[in-house]
């Protein structure tokens, strides 16, 4: 029986103590749930364990033997395998090429023996019930299968200790169940597993033991049999957390957004939206659930003028805006919280002031003609920073120096900080801390209560459930189901997310 132990691991980054005296232990045939919110230091800890970072203090022991990892190669040969949150697969390589990369079976002259490699991939895939086509190219297969490839990769290297970093983030509820099956199979095969997540339900369901990390330090352990979600949340955040969003029942008014038969072509010339129709009414939050990549991104881009519409119509307050530019849509009092704050929401090297006027710089009072009025912009920025609780020493520092939660607040402040009739928000709380999540959820409900229509797209099912008055489920470019908020369970939605008829 093999044991992996971390003792007193400490890691500092400039200005941040990422890990503070962390102890951890896991043995064969056991699943350890490692719980912590975004930014708690889970990934740093695992990167240290995997040899990607060196720890400033502390040691790693395998079966009591201290280990020195100067790179992932060392960790791999010590029997540690890691399935990363963002898959580490080369998209243009085949499954087999990805699996053997780094430990290729070679013949004379360094030529890779692909036949042998494929055979080994098939063997592992059979042994653990992980069905894949060894010749398939990664970019052509769904994420669920890609995850299997990641697991095969780890097993191919004879790993005894398997680390899964937020493995369920990209899966449907059904795929999650299937994944837990695989996890249990691995456990029975005698592997030691560390399952990293911020999802309370999942950690309770599958773990044998739970360890909780907060602000870089281990704050406690819990037994899945006795712990409740509330206990764990409190432990994880350091204070009692409201797991539900407080809101009155909605009182929807006239339709603000009307979408009819919307057809949109995606980046790879695929049908991203295949005729989608729905309304969002004033004073109503409509949540869009679905696994990432089923047309939600394209939907939001089409509605906000960022992507061409092939056919169908979009109306805002009765005005046709199907082929309107982002600026024209902005002019219809539409707020847009984009899916990826770093990619399109903010210009990272710009100051908060410069970012606050990103979609209004051409209007009074921020500019007169082509001359910018930076004074007006600074005043607005100072106002919003105050109002929206953005934690920053100044409005004149680059957005890149803010934490993820504060960056997101800057975007929300910019978008909500004026009169809006329609809010289109995509992944409004992705990757930020619980405090910021709660804050942004409150603001969203507030906008609704003030009479705005809100369309919230999220791959976090819990978020959609908590916020929405009405829920639309997207699958493969279609809206496959519609539910009233509050009357539906995650399991029901999960089935539609996987494309099953409701």
């Amino acid at each position, binding site marked *: 029986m093999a044991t992996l132990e971390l003792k007193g691991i400490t890691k500092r*980054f*400039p*200005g*941040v103590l*990422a890990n503070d005296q962390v102890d951890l232990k896991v043995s064969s045939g056991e699943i350890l749930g490692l719980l912590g919110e975004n*930014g708690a*230091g889970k*990934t*740093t800890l695992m990167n240290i364990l995997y040899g990607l*970072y060196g720890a400033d203090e502390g040691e790693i022991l395998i079966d009591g033997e201290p280990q020195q990892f100067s790179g992932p190669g060392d960790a791999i040969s010590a029997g540690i395998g890691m399935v990363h949150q963002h898959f580490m697969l080369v998209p243009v390589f085949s499954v087999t090429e990805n699996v053997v990369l780094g430990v290729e079976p070679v013949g004379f002259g360094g030529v890779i023996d692909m036949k042998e490699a494929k055979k080994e991939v098939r063997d592992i895939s059979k042994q653990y019930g992980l069905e894949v086509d060894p010749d398939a190219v990664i970019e052509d297969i769904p994420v669920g299968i890609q995850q299997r490839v990641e697991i095969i990769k780890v097993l191919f290297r004879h790993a005894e200790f398997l680390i899964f970093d937020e493995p369920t983030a990209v899966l449907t509820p059904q795929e999650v169940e299937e994944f837990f099956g695989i996890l249990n199979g691995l456990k029975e095969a005698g592997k030691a597993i560390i399952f990293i997540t911020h999802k309370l339900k999942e950690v309770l369901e599958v773990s044998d033991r739970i360890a909780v990390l907060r602000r870089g330090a281990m704050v406690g352990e819990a037994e899945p049999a006795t712990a409740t979600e509330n206990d764990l949340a409190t432990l994880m955040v350091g204070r009692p957390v409201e797991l539900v969003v407080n809101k009155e029942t909605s009182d929807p008014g006239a339709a603000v957004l009307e979408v009819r038969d919307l057809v949109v072509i995606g980046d790879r010339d695929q049908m991203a939206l295949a005729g989608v129709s729905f309304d969002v009414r004033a004073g109503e939050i409509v949540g869009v659930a679905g696994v990432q990549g089923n047309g939600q991104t394209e939907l939001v881009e089409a509605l*906000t003028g*960022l992507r061409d519409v092939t056919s169908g119509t979009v109306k805002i307050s009765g005005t046709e805006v199907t082929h309107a*530019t*982002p*600026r024209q849509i*902005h002019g219809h009092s539409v707020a*847009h919280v*984009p899916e990826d704050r770093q*990619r*399109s*929401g*903010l*210009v*990272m*090297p*710009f100051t908060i002031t*410069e970012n606050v006027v*990103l*979609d209004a*710089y*051409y209007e009074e009072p921020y*500019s007169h003609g*082509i*001359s*910018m009025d*930076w004074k007006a912009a600074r005043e607005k920025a100072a106002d919003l920073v105050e109002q929206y609780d953005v934690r*920053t*020493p100044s409005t004149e*520092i*680059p957005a*890149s*120096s*803010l*934490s*993820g939660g504060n960056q997101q607040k800057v975007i929300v402040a910019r978008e909500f900080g004026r009169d809006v009739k329609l809010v289109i928000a995509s992944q409004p709380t992705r990757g930020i801390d619980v405090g910021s999540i709660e804050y942004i959820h409150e603001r969203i409900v507030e906008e609704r209560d003030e009479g705005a229509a809100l369309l919230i797209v999220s791959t976090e099912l819990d978020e959609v459930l908590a916020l929405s008055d009405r829920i639309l489920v997207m699958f493969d470019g279609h809206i496959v189901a519609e539910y009233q908020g509050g009357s539906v369970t995650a399991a029901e939605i999960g089935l539609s997310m996987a494309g099953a008829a409701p």
Partner: protein
Amino acid sequence: MTDEPKGEAPPEMNGDADNGEKSGWAAFMDDLTGVNVDWRSAVLVPVLAMTAALAVSVLIIVASDIELWRSFSISALGDSFGQAGSAMWALLTGSLGSLAAVSSTLAFAAPLILAGLSVAIGFKAGLFNIGAEGQMLMGGMVAVALGITIDIPVFLNVPLAIIGAMIGGGIWGGIAGLLRARTGAHEVITTIMLNSIAGLAVVWMLSTKFFQPEGRLDPVSEDIAVSARLPRLLGFLDRSDVRVHLGIVVALIAAYAIYWVLFKSTIGYEFRAVGFNPNAAHYGGMRVTWLYTSVMALSGALAGLAGMAQINGLLYRASPGFAAGIGFDAISLALLGRSHPAGVVAAGFLFGALRAGGIEMQVATDVPVDLISVIQALVVVFIAAPALIRAIFRVKTGEEIGQLTTGWGT
């Protein structure tokens, strides 16, 4: 092999910006100028980079002394260093040592500053214009075409040349911008190709009846009208070796205009936004394709002005090599000036001085003038990798310049 990049691993979460305390002189500069700037990277690094580049060039002169290596002796080594020393001295006197020298420096600086602004504005918008050379040629040829056909009073003819050159260069740059915006063709490749095309086009044009003086067979144009020439600023002295002309004024006005556009106007805000993050610019309602085209057109127009300064200020007629590599020097210059108009002006004076001094150096000490290209290349290396400066001079410097351009296909 120590092959890890110099730099800290980025932390998982960002703390507050840690600017640290400013040292005395930096704080003093802030007080003096009323702006809060990272003076270390804005001034100290360029100065040290220049120093290091000159030091290396001295070593190059010595190391390339063929006589020294044929019969090595300490005294021969001394002689060799002596030659290098006098070469450096000639660089200095040739650029600053007399009224004629200073005026020559300024005359060289004018097209350099304009071309440097051209590259700098591209960098600010995330585009790498390697095509300033070709745009100079096209702008300059328009100026020549106008200058040999139109003879109206100087206060009309010079503005005409300016506008014509801006249009000529602007179109040539705009082509690359349009290609980038519409097809994604990387501007680095297209501008390199457009340089070669422009070079061949100039040779062809100079063999046509329109440009070529009667009786000439070599590719050269007629002289432009006297009224199209940029007036000499110190013309009243009546000295033919005092060559400073109106071009330097045009360059300084252009630098201020670009400063205003970049930092005080909505257009400049759009340029910078698209430069840092085209996705966010698109999200903010900016027309990215139009911006790419207009940035490259503006960049080309500035390079066209540089071509005009070269023709109407210095040469008065075109021959195939009239851009004289200024379009390539402009790249180093923009980097040295940190793509800021004020920095470009300062770097333009410096490079102008190198060009003026370089000629004196070749005449006086037999050290080939091509050494200045080497010096300029070295300066950029030191600028772009402050870690090298840190290692050599053991001082604290600002951050790495990092990525100014985008790779293919992104």
